């Protein structure tokens, strides 16, 4: 008789007691399929142990910095106190620019807040199995779920479109700040994303309940918002004269364009 999978997992882990370990080893010596399973589990454990940290997207810090600055501005306004010395603008941020940058940051952060609060998570196929195998009651429930998901999708679409509109307005007005090559790269990337959104939208129209089509549309929106947020962040960094920050964002934009 084969050991159960829990015992084989614990054997692969090295957490099995001595007596059970000996019994499993005896079985493995004679059973190729269990040996294969243990080898595979060890491969997976080894690969998991070798996983490396993922790099956070380059746009993440400028987004966070904007949100922090906005929060500080807001707190300062609430307390109606002059900014203290430690709350002064960072080097490179001064005079009339500060007012302007604050406006940009506020606009971008508002859009960001709207998007962060709107996490659309379409149900995966695994979560919504085929109604044919789920019985009539479940079929009716699945129908309800499909309607609910479509409604959510429509709400998400409207939400993303509003966010995109706001960001586009900022990016379009201020794009003259960017050098022509960067602006061209952005336009090229936006055109590719728009095309993908348009195709996904057509696919959703054809098959409104198709989860891959819905996901693809939502991903398109998210990508476009990410790119527009990068654009606003880049404009901010250039106005601040922060070359290192701008270079980091441009490098991220180029990677996306490849």
């Amino acid at each position: 008789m084969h050991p159960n999978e829990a015992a084989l997992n614990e054997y692969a882990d090295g957490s099995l007691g001595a007596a059970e370990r000996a019994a499993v080893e005896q079985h493995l010596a004679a059973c190729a399929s269990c040996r294969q399973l243990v080898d595979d589990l060890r491969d997976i454990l080894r690969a998991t142990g070798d996983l490396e940290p993922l790099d956070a997207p380059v746009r993440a810090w400028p987004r966070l910095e904007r949100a922090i600055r906005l929060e500080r501005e807001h707190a300062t306004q609430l307390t109606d106190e002059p900014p203290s010395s430690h709350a002064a603008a960072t080097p490179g941020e001064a005079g009339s620019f500060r007012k302007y940058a604050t406006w940009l940051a506020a606009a971008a952060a508002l859009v960001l807040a709207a998007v962060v609060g709107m996490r659309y998570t379409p149900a995966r196929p695994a979560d919504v199995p085929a109604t044919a195998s789920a019985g009539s009651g479940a079929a009716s429930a699945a129908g309800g779920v499909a309607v609910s998901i479509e409604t959510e999708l429509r709400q998400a679409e409207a939400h993303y479109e509003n966010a995109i509109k706001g960001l586009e307005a900022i990016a379009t007005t201020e794009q003259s700040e960017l050098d022509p090559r960067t602006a061209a790269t952005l336009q090229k990337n936006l055109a590719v994303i728009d095309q993908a959104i348009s195709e996904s939208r057509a696919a959703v129209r054809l098959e409104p309940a198709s989860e891959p089509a819905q996901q693809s549309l939502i991903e398109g929106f998210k990508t476009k918002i990410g790119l527009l947020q990068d654009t606003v962040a880049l404009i901010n960094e250039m106005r601040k004269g922060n070359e290192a920050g701008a270079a980091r964002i441009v490098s991220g934009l180029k990677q996306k364009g490849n």
Partner: protein
Amino acid sequence: MDLVASIQAGDVDAFEALYRQYSAKIYTLASRMAGSPEDGEDLLQEIFLQAYRKIGSFKGDSALGTWLYRLALNHCLDYVRSRRAKMNKLTETLDAETSFEPAARRDTPIARMDLERAVERLPEGCREAFVLHDVEGFDHKEVADLLGIAEGTSKSQVFKARLKLRGFLGKR
């Protein structure tokens, strides 16, 4: 002035230094727990914003990195709990068992990106237990406490995750 004191005094550059030191670790945890790099990015943003707001209450009882990691972990756990509650509501009458087509058997070494994608595909529940136990290194008792489940459930969820990964990665 040390890093904590500078951040507590409102120095954004000092906070950026903290972010640069820990963002990869926190983003990695958040992306894997959420099963999506996009959600991981949103969580990263929320976690650091929360850290900025709460840094005033940091007393130095633990290392700053430990404090930040604990804050991140709690935030990720809140997120997965709330998402699970939402999904349970949607699918409460449906069979939650995941079905998948196992990939054709491959005997080549597991590529890192393939494993990352396979982890993203794991069903909720077993993905969190797997990430906490096999990736983050918590023992089953700690995983059980963090996820509010029994220790035996933590073990079975981690085992289930490994078997699913085996299928996704063409290891059977």
